[in-house]
């Protein structure tokens, strides 16, 4: 038996439950209690594509150092689901801990001898205390929370306060929960050795950070950014973004007097309709968006091409999930990059932005609405299930009170009246971005016909090759302009000069940042650049040029971001080395460290040459 793991404020607790059994609230209370003790933590929900009765897990990483990506491995398993018992037991690190319901005893074969087994007769305690089925089921969760509270030396006050806030106004419920919590805690204190080797200690590392999921913050960003029209179709993991937008709007966007709505949200019949509505609203001057996931992106392809070619503002939040096809609807991936960047038939290129966490999801949601109006084209906000549906600990959201919406180039009635020349597809400023007019602006001037067919600079239908080429070239020029307007990359230099660089983006960031240290320790020094927008700023090309080998870390099979880099920046593929993780779980620092360290040894041996995969 290896010695029990000893760790203060730095371990992983995983809860194995059955979905629909009401464990979510208790597990959430656990994570929040840790935070209330000033200890940084992050949580990840691993759930099935199902409503009730199947296995679900809740993983909490506690890390005073503030590394909040998924770590991998489990130090303490709270195994509440017989269906997955074997799998769950197997996942525990040697010397780790198992908390289980010891009411009916299990054969030794069911356990491992290199872990610490902690039995709590949860069912027995429940049945002794409660009569109703539902009560027994629900409070069982609170009781194991109580036991954990003792075993990990949690501050019971913190948990109590949270319960008070959560059930505010429903005093009966508060009392009942506190009682259940106490039941568990007392039993553990009486019957078990508390605390364990893994334990918590109050500190002050959380500061003013907030614990939120990216769908909620992105939705709030859309509210702050001035989105007034949302058309959507339910699909995991994007539904909660639209639903959060609805909730936020009902709170913050109703006329104080008459309670009327300064927003319009339509649950469309499908994604073809939701994007169509967004295009219609954008054409007519409202800030509009939709939220979807892979299958929706596929269905939106035709309309996206129209918006590109007719130059209509639109914002699309793609909460990426396991794919292709219906794939793994409740798992995370970054695999829609190509289908978004080159969406639709024919020659098209689209603008993408990559938030790294819920905080950036808020700001970038608002940025996307400005970019759409400025560039008059669809803007993709590339989120994923990990950012969108998990609670992250991030800095508080901030909004510059002086920030004004950039409505882009819209010609006014005054300008038209004054006789300013208007050509819908005329590049007056040399940036490839033409002026548009909104329907109903002027009685005699500025009206034009919007179409997906080829046209001349004055929006007149034309089948002339030169009109077509002229327009397509301007669109390329506009795309070039975009690279200066999208969120710029962030650079991070290694502690010492190195020929290695790494590119990463989105939800990988948190794991990557943790990996730097570990790599440094191993003597692997990396200059790093976080990609935040596509098309790529010139800096990205320079960064690659400045290094001999550049790793591109992404969460998909086909190295899709690397494809964009090679193709759009004319980079020799031999220079950019793919680091790929795509099994549907969030990428970990452990994975990155190993993968890059291994590669470095390989490429250090072999000098720069064509790698033909």
């Amino acid at each position, binding site marked *: 038996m290896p010695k029990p793991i000893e760790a203060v404020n730095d371990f992983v607790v995983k809860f194995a439950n059955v979905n629909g059994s009401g464990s979510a609230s208790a597990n959430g209370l656990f994570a929040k209690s840790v935070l209330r003790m000033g200890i940084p933590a992050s949580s990840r929900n691993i759930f099935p594509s199902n409503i009730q009765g199947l296995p679900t897990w809740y993983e909490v990483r506690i890390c005073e150092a503030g590394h909040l990506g998924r770590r991998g491995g489990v130090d303490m398993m709270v195994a509440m689901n017989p269906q997955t018992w074997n799998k769950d037991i197997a996942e525990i690190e040697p010397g780790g801990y198992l908390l289980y319901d010891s009411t009916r005893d299990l054969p030794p074969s069911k356990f491992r001898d290199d872990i610490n087994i902690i039995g709590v007769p949860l069912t027995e305690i429940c049945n002794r205390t409660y009569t109703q089925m539902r009560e027994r089921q629900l409070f069982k969760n609170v009781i194991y929370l109580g036991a954990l509270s003792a075993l990990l030396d949690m501050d019971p006050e913190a948990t109590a306060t949270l319960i008070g806030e959560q059930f505010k106004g429903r005093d009966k419920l508060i009392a009942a929960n506190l009682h259940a919590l106490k039941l568990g805690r007392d039993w553990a204190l009486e019957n078990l050795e508390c605390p364990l080797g893994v334990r918590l200690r109050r500190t002050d590392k959380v500061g003013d950070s907030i614990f939120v999921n990216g769908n909620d913050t992105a939705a709030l960003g859309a509210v702050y950014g001035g989105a007034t029209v949302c058309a959507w179709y339910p699909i995991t993991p994007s539904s909660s973004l639209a639903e959060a937008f609805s909730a936020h709007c009902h709170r913050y966007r109703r006329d104080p007097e008459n309670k009327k*709505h*300064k927003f319009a949200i339509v649950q469309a019949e499908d994604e073809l309709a939701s994007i169509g*509505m967004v295009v*219609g609203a954008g*054409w007519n001057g409202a800030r*509009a968006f939709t939220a979807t996931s892979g299958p929706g992106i596929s269905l939106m392809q035709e309309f996206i091409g129209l918006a590109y070619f007719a130059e209509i503002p639109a914002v699309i939040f793609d909460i990426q999930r396991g794919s292709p096809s219906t794939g793994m609807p409740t798992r995370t991936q970054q695999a829609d990059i190509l289908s978004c960047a080159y969406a639709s038939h024919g020659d098209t290129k689209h603008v993408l932005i990559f938030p790294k966490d819920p905080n950036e999801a808020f700001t970038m949601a608002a940025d996307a609405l400005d970019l759409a109006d400025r560039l008059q084209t669809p803007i993709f906000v590339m989120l994923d299930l990990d950012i969108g549906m998990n609670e992250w600990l991030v800095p508080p959201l901030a909004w510059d009170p002086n920030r004004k919406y950039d409505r882009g180039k819209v010609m006014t009635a005054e300008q038209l009246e004054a006789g300013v020349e208007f050509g819908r597809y005329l590049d007056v400023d040399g940036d490839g971005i033409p002026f548009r007019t909104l329907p109903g602006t002027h009685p005699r001037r500025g009206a034009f016909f*919007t179409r997906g067919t080829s046209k001349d600079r004055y929006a007149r239908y034309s089948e002339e090759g030169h009109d077509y080429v002229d327009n397509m070239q301007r669109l390329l020029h506009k795309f070039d302009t975009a690279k200066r307007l999208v969120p710029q990359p962030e650079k991070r230099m290694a502690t010492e000069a190195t020929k290695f660089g790494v590119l990463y983006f989105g939800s990988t960031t948190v794991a990557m940042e943790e990996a730097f240290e570990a790599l440094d320790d191993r003597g692997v020094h990396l200059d790093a650049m976080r990609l935040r927008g596509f098309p790529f700023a010139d800096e990205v090309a320079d960064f690659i040029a400045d290094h001999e080998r550049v790793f591109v870390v992404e969460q998909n099979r086909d190295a899709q971001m690397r494809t964009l880099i090679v193709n759009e920046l004319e980079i020799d593929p031999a220079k950019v080395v793919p680091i790929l993780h795509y099994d549907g779980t969030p990428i970990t620092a452990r994975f990155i460290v190993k993968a890059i360290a291994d590669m470095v040894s390989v490429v250090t041996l072999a000098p720069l040459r064509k790698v033909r995969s």
Partner: protein
Amino acid sequence: MTYITKPRLHHPQLPTNKLGYTRRDYEGAISTLCAGCGHDSISAAIIQACFELSVEPHRVAKLSGIGCSSKTPTYFLGKSHGFNSVHGRMPSVLTGANLANRDLVYLGVSGDGDSASIGLGQFAHCIRRGVNMVYIVENNGVYGLTKGQFSATADKGSKTRKGPANTDSPIDMVSLALQLGASYVARSFSGDKNQLVPLIKGAIEHEGAAFIDVVSPCVAFNNNPESTKSYEYVRGHNEAVNRLDFMVDRTEITANYAPGTAVNIVQHDGSTLRLHKLALDYNPTDRVAALNYLARHHVSGEVVTGLLYVEQDHGDLHHFLETVDQPLNALGEAELCPGGDVLAHYNAAHR
């Protein structure tokens, strides 16, 4: 097809409307459709209706899908913004446009292929939502622009030039619209301007989803006498249940009809629909009866036309969504951005 602006010599003698516009001010580019195409007559009727109603041309947004019918918005209301979207998906684009600015008149023009084949779903759902619009289907039973394949409204057994006979049951757009909750439903014939123009005027003034199915023969591919979408057939089987006189206000009511032969329906905006009954047993305010009547007469091969159903105060999508009176596209930071305090609360609530 290029956007030819015609010389606007304003002959003083050209009649003008309330706004001082002449009929020419409502025209568009020269049509490039086949000579004799029913669609051109519908464009003329739209021009006439807008002129007579004194609609401000630039306050109309005209949207369409893809097809010969969907090309027609180029041929009327040259001063309006137009949007030739994608095939079968105009309804969603129109819905979004309408959400962005409730103050314009939304005119959706489509074809039977565009709305009954590829677009059936979007057609159905935008009707269900009660989008405030005039939705006109120029119904010829074929795909004109792609050279004559049959559409979902084609008669069972009808033959196209190339292909074999159609074996699918045809879709009756009017019955569908009724079932889906449209609050203003009419059918007419491109060849009957007197009937069509008032129906369009009534639809423009109606608040909610107004649908007009206009049989509009395709002379190039589906005008053979056996086709129920041919000039000859419709002329022979047109059974108008009523005649509509559209009046902006009641004072205009002049004609006297025998008792029981006429009804006045006052719309939300005070305008009046005076219906002169031709089929005395027909009641245009009973949805179920209307469906039944249509079905019975369809069996006997008749093309029932007229204002088939109208429901007042049904409300429209904005009404249902309780949106503010100002157009959403006119709201700015002041109205839309909750500001710093709210954000502070939000942050506090997530600690």
